[in-house]
């Protein structure tokens, strides 16, 4: 393995690290709120990654203020657009998750999903 | 002759059977006349068709361009179809008397008649897919017949039957797929259809698949280790056990094995390989195993069922010899076993139905009270043992001849197994006979005062079967010649 590239691409590495942190939180945490936080970290990591990819050092956003320059002067706007879309998606998903969590908490007064499952079994539903 | 009749004989009982519970019969007799008439008509049609075999084939339906439901009569199909067509009317007749006291008669006869059509479908199938389809269907339409009494036992038995059968079919299915892919054609062709060029270096895989397929189909033929469903299924009413579990269903399994062995994979492909030895060893083991279980069993129908297990493996053994003579042996035992086992089952059924006694030790002195039934039973028992002059000897002779000619040491062991099995057969059949005819010195006949011979509807089948047993035994020439001509088609 060539770790030299790791230093060059440290941003990507950070994004991946964040992704893993988020992913494992979402997967392993028992507490629902923490899971949701994990989810957000994970999504953010992806957006960070996308944003990094979309930015080329020294170029501007393609917002035309003072006349069109050469294409080389701007970065591709699509990645940024994707990030924005992604954020919308992740916000709505988080909202839904939180709503579900509230429902569960009202019903079972706990945020631990496993415990809820055992309660459900006791309920015999 | 028009090929469409092939489909007619299969569909007529299926449709006619469905009508049984729907038609507004005023009384039992009307239903009887309808059912018997239907079955007789269909048998007559089928036999007429078998005598003037239509040359071509009839395609009923196409799944895909190469998967069809198509029918064709050839020699082997003729044998099976003839057995079935001859036995069905008799058993329906018997069933009328037997079922008098059972509930849900109409449903029973519906499925009983449908099974006729499905069994003919297996016999007349032109290709391996058609046979597989009807094979599966057979499982399904016979299921309600086993469940018929709806006792806990019956439900359990039907479940076991279903699992075993479907499971077997699942493995057989693998074989069917291989035949479809590696065969030149899915149609049954004497000597097999495998395209050896396409097989290439996959011979061992194909042999493994053959073994799986053999074992899959032989589940219905109750080969060890898949034999335990058959004795359990004995809870069904006797017309079912007699006809289905001694002839139609189990023979369908054996028939399918013969089809894939001789007409799809091809005997030349398998002969002399480890696959042949595996299947033959299994068959040989079952021959002895079934008999030993029969000796241990005291419930009379279950005892006969174990005996069927053993006898079916005679057929499988014949099939596993994989020479034309082996086919002759297997087919002749198929015929012979059909008559003798159905006869003994019907006797057992008559006893159970008329007296409610089900265990061997309850049959003391019955020979004097039900002389006709037990005379028939004795003849059937002797035939099963292989006494010369009765049909069992003829088929056993053919089987052993094939085994000896094959010069395979394992086949020699098979011959020994046949002999052991014959001895065990003597034990489990003759103990019943001796008990019935020669009760203990102090036996009090008043305890079985109510026992007497059943009515003509039961006795007529007995008479016919006994005559058949003796006739085949004494004059086997035409039968064997016919079977040899079938085997002669093999390359």
């Amino acid at each position, binding site marked *: 393995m060539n770790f030299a590239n790791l230093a060059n691409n440290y941003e990507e590495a950070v994004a991946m690290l964040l992704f893993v942190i988020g992913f494992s939180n979402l997967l392993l945490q028992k507490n629902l709120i923490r899971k949701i936080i994990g989810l957000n970290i994970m999504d953010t990591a992806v957006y960070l990654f996308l944003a990094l990819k979309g930015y080329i050092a020294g170029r501007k956003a393609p917002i035309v203020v003072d006349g069109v320059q050469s294409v080389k002067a701007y970065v591709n706007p699509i990645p940024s657009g994707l990030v924005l879309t992604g954020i919308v998606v992740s916000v709505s998903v988080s909202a839904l998750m939180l709503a579900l969590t509230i429902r569960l908490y009202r019903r079972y007064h706990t945020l631990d999903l496993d415990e809820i499952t055992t309660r459900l079994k006791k309920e015999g539903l | 002759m028009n090929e469409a009749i092939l489909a007619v004989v299969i569909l007529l009982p299926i449709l006619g059977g469905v009508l049984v519970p729907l038609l507004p019969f005023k009384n039992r007799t009307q239903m009887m006349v309808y059912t018997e008439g239907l079955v007789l008509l269909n048998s007559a049609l089928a036999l007429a068709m078998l005598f003037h075999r239509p040359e071509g084939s009839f395609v009923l339906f196409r799944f895909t361009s190469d998967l069809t439901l198509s029918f064709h009569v050839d020699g082997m199909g003729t044998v099976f179809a003839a057995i079935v067509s001859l036995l069905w009317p008799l058993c329906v007749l018997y069933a009328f008397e037997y079922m008098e006291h059972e509930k849900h008669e109409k449903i029973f006869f519906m499925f009983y008649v449908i099974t006729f059509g499905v069994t003919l479908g297996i016999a007349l199938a032109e290709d391996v897919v058609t046979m597989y389809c009807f094979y599966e269907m057979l499982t399904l339409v016979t299921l309600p017949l086993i469940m018929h009494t709806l006792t806990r036992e019956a439900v359990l038995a039907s479940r076991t039957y279903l699992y075993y059968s479907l499971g077997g079919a699942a493995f057989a299915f693998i074989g069917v797929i291989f035949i479809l892919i590696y065969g030149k054609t899915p149609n049954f062709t004497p000597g097999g259809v495998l395209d050896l060029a396409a097989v290439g270096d996959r011979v061992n895989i194909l042999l493994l698949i053959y073994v799986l397929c053999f074992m899959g189909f032989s589940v219905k033929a109750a080969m060890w280790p898949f034999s335990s469903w058959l004795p359990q299924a004995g809870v069904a009413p006797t017309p079912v056990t007699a006809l289905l579990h001694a002839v139609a269903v189990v023979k369908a399994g054996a028939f399918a094995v013969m089809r894939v062995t001789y007409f799809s994979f091809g005997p030349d492909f398998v002969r002399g390989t480890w696959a042949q030895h595996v299947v033959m060893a299994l068959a040989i083991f079952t021959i002895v195993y079934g008999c030993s279980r029969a000796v241990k069993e005291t419930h009379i129908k279950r005892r006969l069922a174990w005996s069927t297990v053993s006898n079916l493996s005679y057929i499988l053994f014949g099939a596993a010899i994989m020479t034309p003579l082996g086919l002759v042996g297997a087919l002749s035992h198929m015929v012979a076993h059909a008559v003798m086992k159905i006869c003994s089952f019907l006797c057992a059924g008559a006893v159970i139905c008329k007296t409610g006694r089900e265990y061997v030790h309850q049959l003391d002195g019955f020979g004097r009270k039900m002389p006709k039934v037990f005379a028939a039973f004795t003849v059937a028992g002797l035939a099963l043992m292989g006494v010369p002059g009765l049909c069992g000897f003829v088929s056993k002779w053919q089987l052993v001849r094939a085994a000896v000619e094959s010069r395979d040491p394992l086949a020699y062991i098979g011959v020994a197994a046949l002999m052991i099995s014959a001895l065990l057969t003597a034990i489990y059949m003759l103990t019943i006979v001796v008990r019935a005819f020669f009760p203990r*010195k102090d036996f009090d006949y008043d305890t079985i005062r109510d026992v007497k011979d059943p009515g003509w509807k039961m006795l007529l089948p007995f008479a016919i079967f006994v005559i058949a047993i003796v006739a085949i035994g004494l004059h086997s*020439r035409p039968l064997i010649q016919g079977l040899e001509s079938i085997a002669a088609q093999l390359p």
Partner: protein
Amino acid sequence: MDAWILLPVILPVLAGVILLLSLAFEKRKNGREQPDREPDEARLRSLHRYVIAVLAVSGVLALAVSFSGEHSVTLFELLKGIPVYFHVDDISRLFAAAISVVWLAVAFYSFVYMKHEGKEQRFYGFYLIVYGVLMALSFSGNLVTMYLFYEVTTLTSMPLVLHNGSREAIMAALKYLFYSMCGAYLGLFGIFFLYKYCDTLTFTAGGTLNLELAQGNVTILLIAVFGMLVGFGAKAGMLPLHAWLPAAHPVAPSPASAVLSGVIAKAGVLAIIRVVFYVVGPDFLRGTWVQTAWMTLTLLTVFMGSMMAFREPVFKKRLAYSTVSQVSYILFGLSVLSPVGMTGALLHVVFHMVIKCALFLTAGIFIFQCGETRVEQFRGIGKQMPKTFWCYTFASLALIGIPPASGFISKWYLAQGALEAGVGVFGIVGPAVLLVSALLTAGYLLPITTSGFFPGGIVKHGKAEEHGTGAAVDRNEQKDDGKAANLEPPLAMLLPLAVLAALAILLGLFPNPLIGFAGKIAASVM
């Protein structure tokens, strides 16, 4: 076509079937009436007449068939190339004649004896059928036909064994059945192989084995033949399938035991003769391990049978073991595969048939008259039934082989055959075993005579009816009764016994025609 030679087969079988059917029919007519009721005297007498008439006619027919030249008849094809085929040759003659004579004699005897067993009609029905089947067996002209009638013999003779219906009898009958079946199937196993490797299964003196075909398959053929020897040996009481004999004989009615051990056991011998000398051919077996094993088995059986008989207190069982031993004499004679040995064997077939029947008939008389079955009960019995006892003594002497009684002749030939057959160590061991066995035979038969005539005190035996069947006599109480009762059986019982005993001696005195006949047979096959 000489279809008439089947008359002695068909006639008794038909007659027997009619008896059985009329029994069933009558039962039906009488409804629930006690099925085991005693038939009245008149009925019984007509029954006896019927039986004797049938037997006599068929016996005469059988003799006529036997001694009117070569006959053969093909009935129909059982299987392709395997007809049901009858052929009368010398072996058939020997067996048919001997069986007919003995059968008739035992029938006379049973008329009286069977009174105390009951169910006569059933007994005679099967008795006649078995006779017919045995005739068919003797006349069988090929292996499959013989096998067919061999099986039928087993099946039809089984009811004779279980006649009295006790639990032991039924168990013994089943044992007999299954041993015989086991043997028959071993035989069938061999037949399958012989069918493949022989030119024909029709009996041909000297064998029909096709040695070219057999080339390379000798091992399996030898195994098959050995299986047949052991299998058919079952009926002849050869080791290892001998155990049915001692079980079946004590429980069967004495006439049945007599024919079982005198005649039916010989069916096994007949089958072995047919297989070895008429299908396989003695040359194929000579010097192989099969011959060695066969000889070993027979000698073991001879010795073991005698030993067991020696130790056995129940008289009929003792006789049964004796049969085990004696029939193996015959088999030993055959196994050496020499003409002299075979002559001896054939002679012993006839002699043993006569002698053993006689012995069993005496055993029956003891049971019938005194209800005694155990050897130690016979003390002093000779004084009350001297005629019976003399017959017993003569028969015993014949069996032991004391010159000039018949047994001597056959044993002489047997020993000589063994010595000159060139079978190595068996040439010495064989005669030695025969000698030891003869001594043992003397040891188990003669003490009965001595203690019967010389009880060493006053012992009186009562009639069976007075103290119940099988009960021991309380001798002390009867001591003062004065003169002991005459227990001599009725003439109908005594006469057949006397005839047989006389035959046992006379055949020994004038053996030459028989020896000539047997020698002719032996010469023809080797």
